[in-house]
């Protein structure tokens, strides 16, 4: 009787019936057991992620080709503009296109997560109004699509390095850490924007603007080494800088500029915390407003 848990484990019924579940519904109850509830719904997360990936590659005629063409075109343009026209230096011993691509990879990951996840609640409005599940699954599942795109783009990157006969440094083993970091960096603001988007659809228009603007203030087309010394700390307030620098460090070698990286890490942590907090505070009202 007293053992009250706000859990019903949807997938465990198949294998034998465990002790009877006791679900309690009362105001504010959702907050307790939040993370274990999330774990209980992992199967739904997998299915929703699979749906998003399947739909993404089914609807587009070129399918996976988009994940190839987009970064290649961007790299081509940036190499011409920043490398040739503006004559900006690459990192020592690295062909300019390889340097740009190493920055484009995390940027594409961040910007697609930002775009898709912040819109995901509104595009799944039907489900939110009719079914209970921890709402955070929706933006999380939509960011899996971005990771699949990333995997395709990364395969292209391997070919590009082969074409330039460039051998990445051994530090590329650390890349998974920075992939997780880039996802976390994008999810913070994405969760914040997603929850505000439920109430104010204006935020749908803000995201493309942020992404477009972010491309210019992030070191995608150039190395962050070209930023003047005095401005670098201010520049590092943009957390995308630390994600991109981290990727370049893994792939191209070189040194990490620690003050800037730590600052970026701090901003990312803060944004992730604020994003999750806002999301959790507003999610119990999503069904009333969406």
């Amino acid at each position, binding site marked *: 009787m007293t053992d009250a848990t706000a859990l019903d484990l949807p997938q465990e019924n198949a294998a034998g019936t465990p002790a009877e579940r006791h679900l309690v519904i009362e*105001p504010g109850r959702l907050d307790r057991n939040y993370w274990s509830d999330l774990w209980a719904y992992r199967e739904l997360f997998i299915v929703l992620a699979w*749906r998003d990936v399947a739909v993404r590659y089914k609807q587009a005629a070129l399918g996976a080709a988009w994940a190839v063409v987009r970064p290649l075109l961007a790299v081509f343009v940036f190499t011409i503009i920043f490398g040739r026209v503006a004559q900006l230096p690459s990192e020592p011993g690295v062909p300019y296109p390889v340097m740009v691509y190493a920055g484009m990879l995390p940027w594409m990951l961040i910007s697609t997560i930002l775009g898709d996840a912040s819109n995901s609640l509104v595009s799944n409005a039907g489900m939110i109004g009719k*079914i209970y599940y921890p709402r955070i699954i929706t933006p999380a599942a939509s960011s899996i699509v971005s990771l699949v795109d990333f995997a395709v783009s990364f395969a292209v990157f391997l070919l590009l390095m082969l074409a330039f006969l460039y051998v990445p440094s051994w530090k590329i083993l650390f890349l998974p850490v920075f992939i997780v970091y880039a996802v976390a960096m994008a999810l913070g603001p994405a969760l914040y924007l997603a929850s505000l988007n439920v109430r104010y659809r204006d935020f749908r228009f803000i995201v493309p603007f942020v992404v477009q603007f972010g491309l210019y203030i992030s070191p995608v087309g150039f190395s962050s080494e070209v930023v003047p010394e005095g401005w670098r700390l201010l520049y590092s307030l943009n957390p995308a800088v630390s994600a991109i620098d981290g990727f370049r460090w893994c792939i191209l070698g070189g040194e990490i500029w620690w003050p800037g990286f730590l600052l970026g890490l701090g901003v990312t942590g803060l944004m992730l915390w604020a994003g999750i907090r806002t999301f959790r505070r507003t999610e119990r009202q999503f069904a009333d407003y969406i």
Partner: protein
Amino acid sequence: MNDVVISARGLGKRYLIGHETVDRNQTFRERIMAGAGGLARNLAKTARGEQLVQGEVEEFWALKDVNFDIRRGDTVGIIGRNGAGKSTLLKILSRITEPTTGRVDIRGRVASLLEVGTGFHPELTGRENIFLNGAILGMSRAEIRRKLDEIIHFAGVEKFLDTPVKRYSSGMRVRLAFSVAAHLEPEILIIDEVLAVGDAEFQSKCLGKMEDVAQQGRTVLFVSHNMAAVSRLCEQAMLLTDGRSAGVGAIDEVFAAYRGATSNILSSGARRDLRDHNDRYGSGDTKFSSIVLLDSRGIASSEICFGESISLLIEFSGPVPRDAVISALCLSPEDHRVLQIVSDDDPTFSIGSIDRHAIRVHVANLPLQPGQFNLLIGLHDQSMQPLDVVRNAYSFRVVEHPEKQRRRHAATAKNGYCTTTSVWTVEIEKCAFSG
């Protein structure tokens, strides 16, 4: 052994309703500034998770102090008029929205079916959608794989399994969706009016399937307008009236109460019999036969508090033409027509094939100032030819609301018969002509 599987205590859900108020005398700049300030405040509120409304705020309790117990293996129908709180109750029980007050204890695995085919994606094939929808309803992939053949067979879509659902007919889509839902094996099943879809044959198949579920000793909560379906499926029922419930009872008693809620009022002495009323004109065969005014508690009354909601229950003798327009005009003692209430105002209302000859109209906020009023009711055809118009059909008095004390000048009826809410501010900047 405690056999109560769903137990609700003091359950309530409050919504705040905003009434938009626009100040006409604001300059564009002020409005922009007010808008920006308001937006900033609202964003801060939203981020804190507070409920947020614009303009004047009114509380609305969709459910209030609802208590009930449902025992294991019971099949309970939840009935009530539109807006009585049925959907809100279902949403709370399925955890889509949180209650404002109270507590529910549920023992056992719950599946709720508020819609068939939630999450169906038109681009995915039938097979893919079975897995998707199943997962959304809480089935594991292993469970779905095990039941896949059964689901496909029940839906009868074997041939189109690998066709995108967007090419399905709407009937096929519904059959597939219901088939997935029907193969859920929860201990407690909560169903909204999902039976209102599909053709008659399939509906009957669904009802049969749900009877099976009920007979397997599982608990079923079933919300429907379809009384025949409720009585076929359920042994017990619960009536919701304006967000309140009298608990779970035997289905016959609750049905009687549901019908009685309307007929009691009509048969009580409070209604005004209009059959022998002479002050009328019109050419139709159908006449008004009675009228009664209900206050916000649903009690027949001739004294209404200012600003409260009212309902009018109107009875007819004979069938009402499908395209008829029904109106009620409030007349002041000086015979000025001060307020009109017309059925054409409600785009969702249609008389349809009415057989009960009774109609209810609800007015959320009666804007009449305190004073004595008289009702004129009219029944017109589409070209506004009077079928039956009754003068002095009902008289009532509006009195000041005892709890909402208004300031003296607002409460006087000498300045007008109706009042509307207004927002007053002091202008800081000088006007162009004041020097």
